């Protein structure tokens, strides 16, 4: 099982590839690749450092700008970011393999157990961070470097958030996610795992005990489909499914046909994860994506779509599930209705085609229609939000004084992408904003 699921789809570069690629980089000035990176990693400089053999310095340049540099090297949609902006595209040549070089530099320090950063001199200030995912860890890393004491409250058993639990293992391993979290922990953190703020501890308590609080709790699980039969066995929330597969927890037999609802990034991960899991178990399943819009409207990136097709995933467009049909409490079919796009005012909406219902045999149904919002949590915490999106000002401060927010919990659809690199940048900015606030605060 581990072979199929664990084997990274991106092989590390060989030494000769590193040399060729690093030397091919033009060392542009004010390089477009750097400007295309949400965390503004000085790409030209880190590649130049690889080419001179200063790999440790290279890793530092990367991690200085982006505390999640190792996971970003693996999960960033580089075609859309740095590599998409590389000047070689304009020259009609293939872009520098920036992500792979970044990975090389960080593998180098990981293999040698090189610690890149030290905590700053103690300021006596204390900050509580809610959520130990990429956003929380990035904030914590920089606040520690500024010398503030940090406590992270994390609901799960381990740090890393979706890096550890949500992104499929063949794109980001648990080991890498935990190594990256460990680099932050090494700066001296008080980590309280298994603690859910708003349930086990109140925000009031934290606001009282700490000089500042950061909300970095991400988003929730996949929302309910809201159709009959959804609670049958064999019906999965994509995030639960990926988490179990990734952590190698028992997952029941998937059967011959796996249906995944949705066509976003999470759906692609669920589809490919199910496919690989079935192959690993020696019983390859047909894994089919059902999406209520067309290929052109898919929110997954083109390269993800291509990857899924290469993995043997089938796609059915313009259909939506209406009913899950079971036998002995287990799903065995799903009824779908055909859909079409209709223009309503200036919007395109999905409408069912009356009388077009059809039934497909399904042994496992995985819902991947997005992530829900942690509305209950924000209500309990007394934080202003817009349909579950925490409201922040330019300094990333929430409606409650002394409480900041960063990461997916402030992710507004249509404004930007929910990506590790985006939340790493927010963590960095939140840390700067909090540091300025704490420094301005008159000592009690």
């Amino acid at each position, binding site marked *: 099982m581990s072979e199929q699921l664990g084997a990274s789809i991106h092989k590390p570069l060989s030494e000769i590839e590193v040399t*060729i690629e690093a*030397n091919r980089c*033009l060392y*542009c*000035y*004010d390089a*477009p690749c750097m400007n295309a990176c949400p965390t503004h990693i000085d790409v030209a400089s880190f590649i130049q450092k690889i080419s001179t053999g200063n790999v440790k310095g290279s890793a530092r340049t990367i991690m200085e700008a982006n505390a999640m540099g190792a996971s970003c090297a693996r999960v960033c949609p580089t075609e859309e970011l740095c590599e998409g902006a590389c*000047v070689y595209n304009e*020259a009609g040549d293939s872009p520098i393999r920036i992500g792979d070089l970044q990975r090389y530099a960080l593998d180098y320090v990981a293999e040698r157990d090189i610690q890149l950063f030290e905590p700053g001199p103690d300021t006596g200030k204390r900050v509580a961070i809610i959520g130990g995912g990429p956003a929380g860890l990035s904030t914590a890393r920089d606040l520690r470097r500024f010398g503030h004491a940090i406590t992270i409250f994390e609901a799960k058993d381990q740090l890393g958030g979706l890096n550890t639990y949500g992104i499929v293992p063949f794109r980001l391993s648990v080991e890498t996610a935990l190594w990256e979290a460990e680099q932050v922990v090494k700066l001296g953190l008080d980590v309280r795992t298994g603690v859910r703020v708003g349930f086990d501890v109140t925000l009031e308590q934290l606001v009282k005990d700490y000089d500042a609080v950061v909300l970095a709790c991400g988003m929730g699980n996949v929302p309910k489909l809201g159709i009959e039969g959804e609670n049958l066995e064999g019906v999965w929330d994509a995030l639960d499914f990926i988490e179990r597969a990734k952590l190698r927890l028992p997952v029941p037999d998937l059967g011959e046909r796996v249906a995944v609802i949705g066509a976003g990034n999470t759906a692609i991960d669920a589809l490919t994860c199910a496919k690989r899991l079935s192959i690993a178990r020696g019983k390859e399943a047909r894994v089919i994506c059902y999406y209520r819009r067309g290929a052109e409207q898919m929110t997954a990136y083109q390269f993800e779509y291509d990857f899924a097709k290469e993995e043997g995933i089938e796609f059915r467009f313009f259909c939506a599930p209406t009913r899950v049909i079971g036998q002995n409490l287990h799903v065995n079919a799903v009824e779908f209705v055909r859909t079409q796009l209709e223009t309503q005012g200036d919007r395109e909406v999905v409408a069912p085609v009356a009388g077009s219902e059809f039934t497909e045999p399904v042994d496992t149904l995985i819902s991947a229609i997005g992530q829900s919002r942690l509305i209950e949590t924000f209500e309990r915490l007394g934080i202003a939000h817009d349909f579950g999106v925490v409201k922040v000002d330019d300094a990333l401060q929430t409606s409650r004084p002394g409480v900041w927010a960063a990461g997916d919990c402030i992710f507004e659809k249509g404004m930007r992408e929910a990506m590790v690199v985006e939340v790493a940048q927010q963590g960095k900015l939140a840390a700067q904003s909090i540091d300025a606030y704490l420094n301005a605060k008159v000592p009690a």
Partner: protein
Amino acid sequence: MANLQSNLAGIKSPNPFWLASAPPTNSGYQVMRAFEAGWGGAVWKTLGTPITNVTSRFAALDYKQNKIIGLNNIELITDRPLDVNLKEIAECKKAFPDRTIIASLMEVCEQKAWHELVKRVQEVDIDGFELNFGCPHGMSERGMGSAVGQHPDLIEQVAEWTKEVARVPVIVKLTPNITDIRFGARAASEGGADAVSLINTINSLIGVDLETWNPVPHVDGKSSHGGYCGPAVKPIALNMVNECARDPEVRIPISGIGGIETWKDAVEFLLLGASNVQVCTAAMHHGFRIVEDMIDGLNNYLDERGLASVQDLVGAAANRITTWENLNLNYKIVARIDQDKCIHCNKCYVACEDAAHQCIDRLINNGSSTVVVDEQECVGCNLCQMVCPVEECIEMVQIDTGLPPESWKQRSLRLEALT
């Protein structure tokens, strides 16, 4: 098909490409292979009293992933007995009578020793001698090689001794480890040599291993300076060849050596004054087969330019080189950027800003930047064009200053006349 025959002081070869005296010409086996590949001639690895070599012997300067842009060696002359070398020379000449074989010689500075060596070697059929006054390491410590080449009077003396007994033309190979190459060339000419060849290798040290602090290359932890050659030395060699070519007191032809790897390199040497060329590092790096493209490329070049013979190139651009004081101060070029070709790497910008004349502007317009040359301020230094990674993206264009040509020399005279 142009006529590729070259003629150096009466030594004719089917093409101007000779192998220089070095490892590729160590043995009959190698020279046979070289002739099969098409080389026009070979200067045999320097003959003399056989020596003992050390290991290691070579080291290279690499630039990024380009291997061996420069090569350093601490090898000495032949380590094989003279009679073995002579026997093989005879065999090669017999198998390839149309090719040139030159015997490179090195001896202590005594008339009798030189006479004996010359007489002994010319018992076999050779086309000429080359006196190695260039080797800058090891042999020089024993009063030979560049120890001779650094003293024009010794060059002249040994050339004379050789000429006293030689029945074939004598070429003097010069060392570049001097302040002015012309003195050595004039001495050779004065001593009656028929030609000079240059350059031999340049004193060098490749580097130090950062782990062990051993020099590179090292022999049991130590090294001595070596001789540097390969593509990196070409500009130095070109200049020295041209200086000799333009010097009225150097009345003999030149065999050009130093960093030649392609037919293009060879054409440059010929244009600046060499009658033929010799190659070492390129053959060490790629094997004898490279001569095929050298011959083919040279031939196509001549055909395309409508030139009948290699001879038409020899020295044809030699007098384009002059002294600085004769350059036209009123000639002006400026950089011009082809915006369609530009890939926005901004390398030209930072180069001009930090190291030239701050005359490339970056116009930043919602995220995308355009680089534009301020032609009024541009001094036409070429730096931006040199750093631009895109072929023909930055062009240096001539601007009409409206002023007649005037050199520094002319201007000084004009200003003097005014006062």
